[in-house]
């Protein structure tokens, strides 16, 4: 026994790989280098985020000092021309309304498409649909915007806004201020385009959530005599609900930050109150439209402050998504 094991060791030490082990210093050095690089890169990300937040806070502080934080957030007047009064409420309102309504419009179609891709369509068809969905997501925002300007907005004006407007003008003139000016570029147009733009995103996230439902769950439902739709309703959607909701919230974050297409289609009107069909503005749209002309320090600072608010909203939305994922995702149900 002992002889045998000695022999084994001998043969092993003669093999070409083990005969010349790497000197310990190399391994130590490699370890060190990797550690240093990883830690440096990791810390620089934190530093970058911190620096961005600091620049926004620093540059926006003038606006906050001038109007007060609450005053800036609730101020309804944005007048960079004459009175130099800056209040962010119209843009916060515009952003919240357009993105929440866009999510509302996009959510159910997106979930339906995801269910078709994941559960109903044969593999070749779901591949095609998925590719198309990804293609839509890959269209640059500005291209969507220019399509909206030249095709969608005029079409909406002719077929939707004008008939409604004329009907209201004839029979319910009191509705006119709520409906607003039917020029085609406004809150509704921007919201619908925004919904179109987040559908692929919501679809992909929902599909991922549905794909993560274990096969056993579907089979368990099927073994109870569930039909296809009942399997989805009973086993798939409840199991995936955390992922689907988190996906919806992340899509909301996407809609909040969407800039170009919205800026091109919303009509860019800075004064409250907004109307349903008429022009409005959002936080990103006002920043992109005014940063070039912002010569006054207070004006620039106010735009920075809006940027800070947007930054904070984006962080909050992402935190909510993470919280929902953690709270609602299924753990322990399957494990033992």
């Amino acid at each position, binding site marked *: 026994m002992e002889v045998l094991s000695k022999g084994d060791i001998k043969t092993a030490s003669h093999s070409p790989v083990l005969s010349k082990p790497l000197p310990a210093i190399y391994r130590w050095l490699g370890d060190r280098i990797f550690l240093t690089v990883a830690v440096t890169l990791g810390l620089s990300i934190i530093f970058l985020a911190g620096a961005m937040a600091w620049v926004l806070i620093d540059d926006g502080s003038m606006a906050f000092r001038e109007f007060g934080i609450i005053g800036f957030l609730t101020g309804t007047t944005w007048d960079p021309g004459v009175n130099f009064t800056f209040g962010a409420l119209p843009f916060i309102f515009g952003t919240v309304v357009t993105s929440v309504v866009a999510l509302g419009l996009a959510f159910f179609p997106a979930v339906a498409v995801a269910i078709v891709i994941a559960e109903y369509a044969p*593999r070749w068809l779901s591949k095609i649909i998925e590719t198309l969905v990804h293609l839509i997501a890959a269209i640059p925002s500005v291209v969507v915007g220019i399509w909206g300007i030249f095709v969608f907005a005029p079409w909406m004006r002719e077929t939707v806004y004008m008939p409604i407007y004329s009907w209201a003008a004839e029979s319910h003139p009191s509705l006119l201020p709520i409906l607003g000016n039917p020029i085609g570029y406004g809150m509704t147009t921007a919201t619908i385009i925004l919904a179109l733009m987040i559908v692929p995103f919501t679809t992909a996230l929902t599909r991922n959530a549905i794909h993560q439902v274990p096969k*056993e*769950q579907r*089979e*368990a*439902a*099927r*073994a*109870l*005599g*569930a*039909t296809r739709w*009942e399997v989805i309703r*009973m*086993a798939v959607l*409840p*199991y995936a*609900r955390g992922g689907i909701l988190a996906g919806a919230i992340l899509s909301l974050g996407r809609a909040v930050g969407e800039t170009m297409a919205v800026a091109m289609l919303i009509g860019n009107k800075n004064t409250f109150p907004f109307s349903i069909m008429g022009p409005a503005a959002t936080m990103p749209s006002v920043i992109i439209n005014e940063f070039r002309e912002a010569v006054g320090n207070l004006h620039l600072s106010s735009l920075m402050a809006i940027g800070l608010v947007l930054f904070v909203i984006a962080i909050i939305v992402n935190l909510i998504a993470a919280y929902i994922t953690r709270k609602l995702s*299924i753990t*322990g*149900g*399957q*494990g*033992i």
Partner: protein
Amino acid sequence: MNINVMFKKKKPKQEKISPGLQPQDPHRISKEISTNGSPLIRMEAKELTVKYGTVTGVRNISLPIYNEKVTALIGPSGCGKTTFLRALNRMHDLTPNATVTGEVLLDGNNIYVPRMNPVTIRRKVGMVFQKPTPFPTMSIYDNVVAGLKLVGIRNRALLSEVCERALRQAALWDEVKDRLGSPGGSISGGQQQRLSIARALAIEPEVILMDEPTSSLDPLSSSKIEDLINELKQKYAIVIVTHNMQQAARVSDNTGFFYVGDLVEFGPTDKLFTNPSHKRTEEYLTGKFG
């Protein structure tokens, strides 16, 4: 029993796979049983073949499943036990590429004829899986009555009555009766598996298929499930796939030995374990392979 005698006879077959691996003549089995007044055959597979694309899962399986008996399917991994089991309640229907030929008779009716609705069949042939599969977002109560709600039963008194009966049958009632409202995923693995069994029992199936029901459980939970199987066989026909030969010996009345897609041998468990007719069976049972 006469079955044993009969099983020793071999019938030549169209395609020879390897010597000593021929299936039995299914028609002879049923004849023997009916004339002898032996237990009723609840289900019967006749020359059942399942293919995944061009790969054969199981080949020409003919096997009776007796009422109020436990039928165990043993054999090495990947030899088609689960494939065969899933063919018994048409679970292959939604597997892409899977094709099933041959017949499976449930109370004399072939479940693979087009007019048979798989949903109806699965209500008569319940299934318990390898891993416990409670619906994690539903309460324990809702898990048990899930199958009943599917058929449209909404009467609350009836539902709670069935829930209690099924949980008692699954020997889980005493452990969960005070927290029927808590999520199905909140109980232990062994309890979850018994919950899965209770859920299958609630729809009052005729046959219960169990696919390695204890393979993910600890020994104590496993033995509880085995006791449960012994209880349940007084009312149901049970088919259990197991890798654990002791388990097959403990719980089953009849055993089928599968080897690379063929049913090598089928017969009463005590006979198969003590005096197998085929060399392969003996080799497997004595641990020469598998």
